């Protein structure tokens, strides 16, 4: 029997009593729960339901939603393409300095996103170290384009994929890869036919987490890409913009983001929610 089924059965067994659960724990847990749920529920109370369709299907809102979906999808793919190999190296390589490498990869996780956006701007801006070279060589600049949105999202979301996938790789262990090698499989063949299929669930939950982070991304985007409708104004940026001009629109769009988040959690379940990476 697989593990989720065992967990589910254990949870349903009414003969089992709870151990390791002091009664006092319930109080702070309830406060914490309220802190998460009440604001979101409050959004529902504040919503101008009759005007909701009109607000959500306005041109600027649809532009922002479309842009958010497209850029987040591309960013998630980039996270898999570049973060995936990083996770494999962190989990499998025996080179020195891995701990430093891991700390650096996790940097965007602890860095304020707006700082990340500024850093990207200084690197890739017109006067930046790499940006100047790109403009001379190819005649274009990255900041304040849709590409900048993608870069900003990839920057902040990459650690989520790396952490999740590295955990899955470590849990899977190297035993199956060793068996594959004794069967004559080259490292590449073993990677494609054994490693990747085995960590697919971990990769999927990492990708969902990264996607969710991309959808919510604000600070790095506004610093590096600005807020141009249809080009760089994603949903969170639009919500921030509308909060002064039209509170009802801001609330409606926020509700839309909540729906997106709920869908993401539903898709990602049960793996990372139940601690299974």
């Amino acid at each position, binding site marked *: 029997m697989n593990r989720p089924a065992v967990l589910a059965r254990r949870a349903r067994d009414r003969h089992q009593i709870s151990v390791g659960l002091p009664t006092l724990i319930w109080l702070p847990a309830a406060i914490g729960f309220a802190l998460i749920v009440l604001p979101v529920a409050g959004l529902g109370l504040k919503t101008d339901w009759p005007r909701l369709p009109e607000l959500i299907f306005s041109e600027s809102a649809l532009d922002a939603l479309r842009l958010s979906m497209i850029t987040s999808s591309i960013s998630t793919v980039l996270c898999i393409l570049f973060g995936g190999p990083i996770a494999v190296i962190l989990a499998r390589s025996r080179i020195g300095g891995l701990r430093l490498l891991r700390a650096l990869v996790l940097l965007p996780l602890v860095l304020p996103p707006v700082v990340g956006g500024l850093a990207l701007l200084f690197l890739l801006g017109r006067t930046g170290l790499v940006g100047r070279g790109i403009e001379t060589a190819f005649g274009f600049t990255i900041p304040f384009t849709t590409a900048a949105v993608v870069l900003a999202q990839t920057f902040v979301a990459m650690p989520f994929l790396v952490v999740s996938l590295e955990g899955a790789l470590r849990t899977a262990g190297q035993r199956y890869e060793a068996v594959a090698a004794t069967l*004559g499989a080259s490292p590449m063949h*073993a990677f494609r036919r054994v490693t990747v299929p*085995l960590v697919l669930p971990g990769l999927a939950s990492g990708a969902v987490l990264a996607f969710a982070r991309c959808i919510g991304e604000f600070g790095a985007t506004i610093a590096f890409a600005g807020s141009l409708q249809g080009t760089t104004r994603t949903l969170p940026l639009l919500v921030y913009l509308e909060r002064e001009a039209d509170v009802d629109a801001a609330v409606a769009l926020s509700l839309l983001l909540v729906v997106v988040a709920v869908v993401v959690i539903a898709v990602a379940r049960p793996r990372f929610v139940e601690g299974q990476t």
Partner: protein
Amino acid sequence: MSREPAGLDAAIVLRRPEFTLDLAFAVAPGEVLAVLGPNGAGKSTLLGVLSGLLRPDAGHVRLGDRLVTDVAAGVHVPPHERGVGMLAQQGLLFPHLTALANVAFGPRARGVPRTDADAAARRWLIEVDAAELAERKPSELSGGQAQRVALARALAPEPALLLLDEPLASLDVDAAPALRSLLRRVMRGSKQSKVLVTHDALDALVLADRVMVLSGGRIVENGPTREVLTRPRSSFTARIAGLDLIPGTAVDGGLKTADGMLISGRQSEQLADGQSAVAVFPPFAVAVFRQRPDGSPRNVVEVEVAALEPHGDTVRLRAAALPAGPGWVDGLAADVTPAAVADLAIEPGMRMWYAVKATEVAIHPAAR
């Protein structure tokens, strides 16, 4: 990729904090070498070096005329280019592939087209009596079934050397005998060298031509299976072996020794009359008497007590053959309580009678 049968020749030094593996040995083409030893003796480390997953500190590993490890010359052929197969304790079938795809994995990895690889995999599944399991996923297999599929998978690439890492240890008592006799049948038919790591003397007895006993990373004994197990030269090996063995040929209801004595016992599997076999029983099943006993035990033989060894909270008697008696008596052990030793006033040189009930005696096929 099929290879010429190739022997194994190895000399290995590998230093670990807990012990140093330091040994040299050879295995002829087609031969089965059992490696016995307690946990921490270096058995798994040895397999790691042979398969190429571990790099030794010094020494070499040669498969036929191919040098796959030579520390001095800087040679270390990676595991996937060695042609060294491995059957692990838990089978480790790839959980996302069917039994058939698991077996076809090796040939596919070597570039065999899919249809040919599948056909070969079906042949190997038939070989291990698992043809009907082809479409099942590993999660739908019992331990014994999974281990049979894993055996087929290890054999499918036709490795020059097959390593078996306690292949029966994780099976329950019902499944182990069936797989043991399957291993015996399949291993006898193949020409590759085989190294079987086990802690069970019975596995060595049924499957191996030769036994190498390891302790603390060194070889303490190395020789033909029956010789090592029946006449342990060190108390250490005797403890590992821990079984009484009587060689002979299978007959209805038991085994007949070379000198014609019938040893009554239960056959572990259907054996043909006249087939080479061995009677096995634990020393604690042996009762000792000063006079020839007259009772239910079917197997009674007169011995001379050669030695008394403390063995846990019992005393192990070692028998020696009488000048005119059968030679196989030599080394037979009997465990008795210290009180019995005192009551019977047992001492070396005394003549005693050993008696064993037929129900305690298992008749197994012998490796050769």
